[in-house]
């Protein structure tokens, strides 16, 4: 009965409406829902496996990409035996240039901040930050700089040179004896 306290003459109408509304679920509906839930559970399990597999593949791809496209450091110079040249420079005492100016000029000199690497197979030009070189700057301060000696201009000797008088040259005439013009006439 519709809970609206219908009048007695409306009971027939309400009964018909109730028969329209009170329809049972189809036979086997609960089993159908249960099967759908089973299917969903199995799909969820396979989805979890698929997601884990996809994540693993993604990680491997990222690692490969990082190795292939990642920044590579320029090769370090081979570590050789202690250079005798360095020792010679350290021993040179007559260098009165302050160390700060050397560091400043090293920082501002073009081409020292960035290294351009070789062209990779992918076609991209790599650029490395100059971190290694910046770390090397304090060591440069310790290295004494050599000021080039001032080279005086060589005094040129001045001397007078006498030149003989030369007569004007007459044009050269060849007397070949020929009167006609033609091949071999060079007049």
């Amino acid at each position: 009965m519709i809970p609206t306290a219908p009048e007695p003459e409306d009971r027939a109408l309400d009964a018909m409406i109730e028969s329209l509304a009170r329809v049972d679920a189809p036979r086997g509906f609960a089993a159908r829902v249960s099967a759908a839930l089973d299917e969903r559970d199995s799909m969820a399990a396979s989805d979890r496996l698929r997601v884990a597999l996809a994540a693993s593949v993604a990680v491997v791809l990222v690692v490969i990409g990082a190795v292939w496209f990642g920044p590579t450091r320029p090769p370090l110079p081979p570590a050789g035996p202690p250079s005798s040249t360095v020792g010679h420079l350290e021993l040179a005492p007559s260098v009165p240039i302050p160390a700060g100016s050397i560091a400043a000029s090293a920082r501002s000199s073009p081409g020292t901040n960035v290294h351009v690497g070789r062209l990779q197979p992918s076609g991209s030009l790599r650029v490395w930050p100059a971190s290694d070189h910046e770390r090397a700057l304090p060591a440069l301060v310790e290295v004494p700089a050599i000021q080039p000696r001032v080279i005086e201009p060589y005094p040129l000797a001045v001397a007078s040179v006498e030149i003989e008088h030369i007569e004007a040259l007459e044009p050269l005439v060849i007397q070949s004896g020929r009167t006609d013009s033609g091949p071999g006439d060079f007049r």
Partner: protein
Amino acid sequence: VTDAELVERARAGDRAAFDAIVERYQHAVFRATLAITGDRAEAEDAAQNTFIRAYRRISDFRGDSSLKTWLLAIAWRQGISGRRAIVTRLRRLVAPADPVRFDPPSPRRSEEDRAIAGQRAATLKQLVSRLPEKYRSALLLAASGDYTFSEMAQATGVPAGTLKWRVAEARRMLKAKLKAAGYEA
């Protein structure tokens, strides 16, 4: 076994407990989705989706309302979203909705009475299906006998007084149309 016990077991992953919930409330949920959609096939799909969603969200059920009201709220949303789906609209375009199968009249009646009652019932079925959705759903939901106005209000978010008014208005419209069709209400 009470609803609370079944919910507790279902939360713990007991599928048999949830199957028992489906068995217990399948008719109420199906009637609710039928009241909203007005079509048996759509109502079956919506009811199934209601239970699947309930199974997925069973941990969210806090027990503030009854399990039946909670299921009705899910069914209401499933029915409404199902009606708005493009596939459903296209299906309605191809084949008009056939809302409900009417039960045959009592066999003790005479043949003439049965014929008249059957004709009247068919007319009423058509008239109900042509009611505006909010009136039809309120009328059929109330007539199903599974839900009180309080439960309907809690599940749908529509005030109980509004639902009662919609039911009364739907009945008034049906009576007027039946009378216009030549039937005594």
